[in-house]
Each structure stands twice: as C-alpha cells, then as structure tokens.
C-alpha cells in the first residue's frame, strides 16, 4: 500500500469506512464458505499433502503422532461445525464491538497520533499482514492464517521451525484453489521475509523472544518501527475444580487440559484452584494421571515411523481418540523433576507425582507463574480468591476453565477479556477463540460497521 495515499481527513475516511464495512460482511461470508470447504478438503483429499505433512512432522518435529492427530481432529471437527461462517457472523452482528468501532472513529477525529485510530484508517481490505507464528503445538498458527484470509487481507508468514510442515502444506493447497492473491509468501527464515510495506504484524510467542524478533526485523529493514504489532504472549491457563465428583466425572477432559501436548501451549492448565486440598483429591488425581500414562505406554511403540501400519489406519474416527503421548520427554526433564520432587519432600510441600508429572500445592499468596510444562500448581482456595489470582497473573494468563456444570458459580474477573470456559474446550477451542482476549478477525477488521 502506498503510504502517501493514506486518508488525511477523518470525515471522508469515516464514510469510506462505513461503506467498506457493509461490503465486507457479504464478501467475508463468501470467503468463509469457500475457505471452510477448501480446508475440509485438505483433510479429506488423499492428494492434499496432509499425510505427507503428518509423516514429516512425526519424524521431524517434537510433536507426537497422538498430539498431531488430536489437533487435526479438533480443527477438522470445528470446521465441520461451521466455525468460520459463525466467526464472520459474530463479527458483523456484535453490537458492542460495533459501538467500540464508532467510538474509535470519534477518537480519531481528535487525535491523529492515536495508534488505534491509525490502524482503523490503515487497515483496508488487502492490507499486508505479517505473521510471526509460534510453534509449540501443531498448527497453532492456523487461526491467524484463517483470520487474515477471512478479513480479506494478504498473508505473509514466518513459519515456526518447530512446526514447519503443516502450515506450508495448507498454504500450498489453498493456493491451488484460488487464494493466491491473498497468500503472498511464507518462509522459515527471518532473513527471507520479503520487504512488503506491511500494515500490521501478528506475533504469537514468548515475551522473551518478542523484542529480539522485532529488533531483527527492523534492523533488516523488513519493517518500519511504527508498524503496529499485535503480541500474544500469554503462557498458561487456570482451572477451577469445585469438587471430587467433578474430577472423577471429567477426569479425561481434566487430564487433557493438564497433560495434552506435554503441558505446552497457553491453553494448557498450569494452575488449578480448588476449595479442596490436594491431599483430598490425591487418589482420583493419581488414578487419572496413571490412566493417561498407562494408555500411552502401550501406544509408545506406535509413535514411530517403524510402525507405519498404525499410521495408515488413520481416519477421522480414530484421531478423535488420540491419547496423550509420552513422546517428547527427555532425560533432562526427568532429572530436573527428580530434584523437584526431592525439594518438595524437603520443604514438606504436598504434591502428587506420577511419571514425570507433578502437581504441587502452593499457598495462594505465593503461587508463582508456572514455568515448567509438566508441573501444575494446585491452590487450595475458594472461588472468590480465584479473582485475585487472575488479576495477579495478568497478561501471562490465557484462559479460565471450570470443571462441573455450574460455571455461573464462579465470579467473573472484572477483566472483560476473560470468559469462563468449560474444561472440555481447553484443548478443543472453537476456531474463533480469542488468544489473549483478542478476537483476531475483529482486530483485523476495524472497518466493520
């Protein structure tokens, strides 16, 4: 986009924006139907390249076959549910968001330096968006790609080296179906990102890597300093567990939330708050964890390419039953957890340890931010205290889940970005879920009125 052509007048810009928003709704819905169709076809068509990407990922990444199949199954089922069309509808029908957009335009009239106002005028259809993808889970960057395509923008991606096969496979596939105009380029190497007059950068990853990535891109003159970045850096989620009954009845979903993907990913539970102490739930928790690990012990051999028959049996039904894998555990993890268990014993801390997984009870005053994927903190506290904890963890926290049926029991934190979600959605979120509280499609379309 030619930056000199940016609208100078608020009023003319505002009218233009209104018009653009109206047109956008219809076009976006058409794109959603098409994209949904093409993505489902990637899952179903034997020639799509998906199988090759699965094989490459199993042999060439840290992801286990179970996690890969689980993730593919979760995404496919959400596509089949119609998430993309729903997402567009949600954006266009959301009254509160609409009001916010109008307010934003009002702000713009008085403050041209305001960043949000800048974005509002800057982001049109066919804006150039650069994605810096995280790679801690298979296909974790897909949501950003979908949002950019639905919004009508142009995508350039820095693909994560930890997940180098799936996104390129999908992008190549989509190009064959007419998405070439919007999918411009992708690469694993930062140095190979083309200079393209980007309007926005979407970043997902750790807080620690953010500044160095940004610095590299600016120094390489790939980006201007003033280009806005949307940074998603939350690192863990919290679950509220009201009773022993809830643990027993939802043990599969609960363990999935804790242990799926080796505990990695910001939607994985790092802290559990419960009115029950860990000792009171020791037996059901140990049983649930043992159950997960025992199931996977038998699957361990199937996690390798030496057992291709198992992989060939892949279909939609069996991927839905993918178990939590053991693959990915390294000796170093085991050793550090041995020291951690010894430490817990030394300071008389209550903990449950199964395999190389630990749940440790910490007092609410001092519970730290979780830093180890395989260590979950248990906080013996009531639901009122949960609010304080959420406020304390701030931007590091991604989601809040509840076990049981009565989510309304939990007092909602005043931070509006948090919805209380059911525990079973932890690892199977809708495609329109909001990382760090931001609806990415809505964010990319400030012009929707």
């Amino acid at each position: 986009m030619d930056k000199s052509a940016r609208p100078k007048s608020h009023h003319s810009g505002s009218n233009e924006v209104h018009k653009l928003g109206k047109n956008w709704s219809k076009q976006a819905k058409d794109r959603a139907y098409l994209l949904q169709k093409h993505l489902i076809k990637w899952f179903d068509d034997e020639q799509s390249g998906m199988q090759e990407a699965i094989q490459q990922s199993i042999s060439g990444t840290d992801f286990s076959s179970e996690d890969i199949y689980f993730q593919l199954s979760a995404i496919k089922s959400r596509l089949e549910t119609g998430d993309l069309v729903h997402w567009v509808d949600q954006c266009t029908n959301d009254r509160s968001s609409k009001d916010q957009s109008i307010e934003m335009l009002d702000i713009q009239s008085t403050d041209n330096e305001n960043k949000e106002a800048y974005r509002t005028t800057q982001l049109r259809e066919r804006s150039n968006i650069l994605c810096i993808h995280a790679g801690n889970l298979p296909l974790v960057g897909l949501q950003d790609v979908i949002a950019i395509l639905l919004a009508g923008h142009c995508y350039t991606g820095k693909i994560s080296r930890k997940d180098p096969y799936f996104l390129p496979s999908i992008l190549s596939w989509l190009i064959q179906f007419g998405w070439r105009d919007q999918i411009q380029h992708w690469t694993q190497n930062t140095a190979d990102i083309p200079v393209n007059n980007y309007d926005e950068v979407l970043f997902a990853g750790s807080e620690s890597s953010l500044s160095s990535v940004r610095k590299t891109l600016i120094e390489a003159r790939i980006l201007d300093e003033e280009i806005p970045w949307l940074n998603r850096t939350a690192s863990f989620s919290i679950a509220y567990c009201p009773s022993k009954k809830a643990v027993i009845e939802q043990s599969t979903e609960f363990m999935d939330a804790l242990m799926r993907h080796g505990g990695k990913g910001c939607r994985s539970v790092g802290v559990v708050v419960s009115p029950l102490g860990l000792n009171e739930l020791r037996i059901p928790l140990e049983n649930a964890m043992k159950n997960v690990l025992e199931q996977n012990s038998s699957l361990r051999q199937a996690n390798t390419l030496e057992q291709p028959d198992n992989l060939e049996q892949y279909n939609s039904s069996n991927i839905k039953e993918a178990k939590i894998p053991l693959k990915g555990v390294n000796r170093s993890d085991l050793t550090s957890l041995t020291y951690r268990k010894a430490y817990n014993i030394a300071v008389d801390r209550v903990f449950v340890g199964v395999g190389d997984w630990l749940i440790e009870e910490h007092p609410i005053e001092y519970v730290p931010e979780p830093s180890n994927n395989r260590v979950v903190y248990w906080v013996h506290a009531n639901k009122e205290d949960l609010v304080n904890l959420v406020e304390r963890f701030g931007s590091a926290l991604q989601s809040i889940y509840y076990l049981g049926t009565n989510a309304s029991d939990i007092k909602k934190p005043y931070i509006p970005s948090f919805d209380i979600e059911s525990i079973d959605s932890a690892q199977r979120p809708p495609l329109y879920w909001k990382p760090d509280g931001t609806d990415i499609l809505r964010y990319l379309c400030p012009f929707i009125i």
Partner: protein
Amino acid sequence: MGTNGRLTMNEPFSISSQTIEHIKQRIPELYASLTESVTPFFLNNTLNFEEKLAQIFVFQYILNPVYQKYCTALGWSADDYSRCFEELPPLLPVQAFKDAAVWTHDTLVGDTEISTYLTHLKADAQPLEFLSSGTSAMQRSRHRVLNPTFYDASIRASWQARFGKDNWIIWAYTPGYSENPQSSLLYMIDRLMEWDHTQESRYLSLEECLPLQQLNKLVEDGHRVMLFGAAFGWLDLIERHERENEPLSLPREVSIMETGGMKTFRRSISRVDLFDRLVQGFNCAPEQLHTEYGMTECLSQAYTSKGLWLKSPDWVKIVVVDPDQPNKVLESGQEGLIGIVDLANIYSCSFMLTGDRGVQDEEGRFQVLGRWEPTSLRGCNFLMEQDG
C-alpha cells in the same frame, strides 16, 4: 517438630541410635570447634577445603531436617563422608529459605539432647535472624544464624581477603533498607563500621547530596573511604546531583561498592551499562568501582577483584551447574545456575543453588549475568541480561 524448636525421638530426624561419640568420631575437628572457643571451623587451616566440606555435610545432614530430607530423596546419607571427596553434595535451592526453616535443630542423641554439647542449638539461645527484602506480599527468605560470631568472622575475613587489613571508613547509602531492619546487608555494614577505628563511618542522608567537602577532608587526612550501597541507590544519588546541579567528582582515593541489590526497583539495567553510568556519574576511574555479591542465605561475600569478575574467599566454592541437572558442574565459560558452597553457614546449610545465572572463568572467578527467572522479584542482583 517438638516444642521449643527441638526435635524429638518420634520425629524422623531423631538420631537416637547414635551416640555423641559416634558423631565426634565422624566430624572430630568440626565438633571440637563447635564446643571450644577456637577459630571458626571454616577458617581452620589444618584441614583442606574438601575435608572441611565433608565434615560439614555430615553435620548438616544429621541436624538440618530440610537438608536431610532433600539429600535422602536424592540418594545421599550421613555415611557419605567419603563421597563428598568425589562429588558435590546436593545443592539445596535457596528458595528453601523462603519455604522452610533451613537450619540445624536440637535433637536427641541417644537419651541426650545434642544441645547439651552444642549450646548454640539450645532453644533459649538468641540467634540472629535475617530476612531478605521484599514487601509483605512477597515471600521472604529467612536465615537464622545460631552463632553470630561466625557471621562476624566471615564478614571480616571476606573483607580482608579482598581489601587487606588497612582501616576503611564506610559511608553507607541504603535507600529502601529502613523497611527491613532484619537485612543482612545492614548487619554487615554495621560490623564494617564498628571496625573503623576513626569512628568517621556513618549512614548518609537519603535526602541530600554527597557531602563532598567532608569527603575531600577525609582523603586529605590520609583515610581510605568506601562508599557502600545498593547499585540503584547510587544511581538515585547521581540523579540527585544532576538535578541539583552539583557536579560529582570523586577523589581517586575513594572507592565505591555496589551490592547489586535494588531496593527501589523502578528500572532494570545491564551490569555493563550500570558500571558505565556509575563511572560517568561519579566522574571516577573504573578501578574505583567494586561489586559485592552476597545474599541473605549466605554468611560470606564475594568481591570483584578486577572489572566484572567476582572472587570468593577461600572457604567458599562457587560452581556453575546445569539448571536441569544441578549435580552436573559445567566447564568454565558455560552459562548455568550459580551454586555456592559456603562453609561459614555451619548451622544452616552450606550447599546452595541460587536462582542466579552465571559463568565462571578458568581461575574460578565468576560473573553474575542476571536472574534465571526474569519475573522473580528477589532483592539482589536485579539486573537484566548482560549485553552481548
């Protein structure tokens, strides 16, 4: 634990099957030093470092319940005296000083309380207790020092090992410490001031610029002066001088000690930048700047000998270990977690794993590169990663 802090036979740390003679045989020199008024054991010159370490390990394994449980869980026992000559005993994370009572306790030996022989373990003894800095919302380290003379001896010997036996006037600038009267740093500064025979040592006003006239007078009179304080306090003082348009120019005879601590934590800065800022702000030579590395959990201190490298005293061994496998000591030049064996910590725990990231050179000197977990808000070494 029983009443008055004494362990009873029913507790897992009772050593009722032992006799005091057994203990004496296993740690003869240490036992003698703890029961007689002689040179502190860590300053004993008749034993080498490893011999002292092994005796202290056995002593702390027997009488420090927290350390005993930690070691037992890692496969160590009180019989591992000889093993200490082959490998480092387990390093207890310093976090334990926040989570538990990491000191030696009175217990029964046979039918007799061991405090009958080791009187500093008596419940009515009056130990010192230090707390790390932090707000009430923060978990703070607690270090009980059962025999304060060990701390005094360590402070003095650490200082003299670096700065010799000359008299030093200490001018301390310690913003933020008034909220923590149990600061080990304040105790240390008090001792250094006591040992100044001129009685010119004092705490500087936090509301005023450095009294340069008085400082110059002390230098003219031939005294050696050390300005002693937390790094960020010095930056505050420099800013005050700039604000009040009072140029700072430090006489070459005056030295500055920065303790790495930050009590007003309102900024983070790399160590290199900090040094540059201090040299520029005080208008002094780099050689006038010194760093002290110490912590609430340690009774000994390390000082820079030149530039950024710290040197520990003879009774302290610094190691840099693999964070995932703290029993694995890394080669010089490799970054890892700093482990400390401080033999002055006789009545608490001498084997500690800090949360600090560091590197060691071939001479055993070390640098602190920052906190391993950047979100941790502990009082000391609050600098972000070193540049480059």
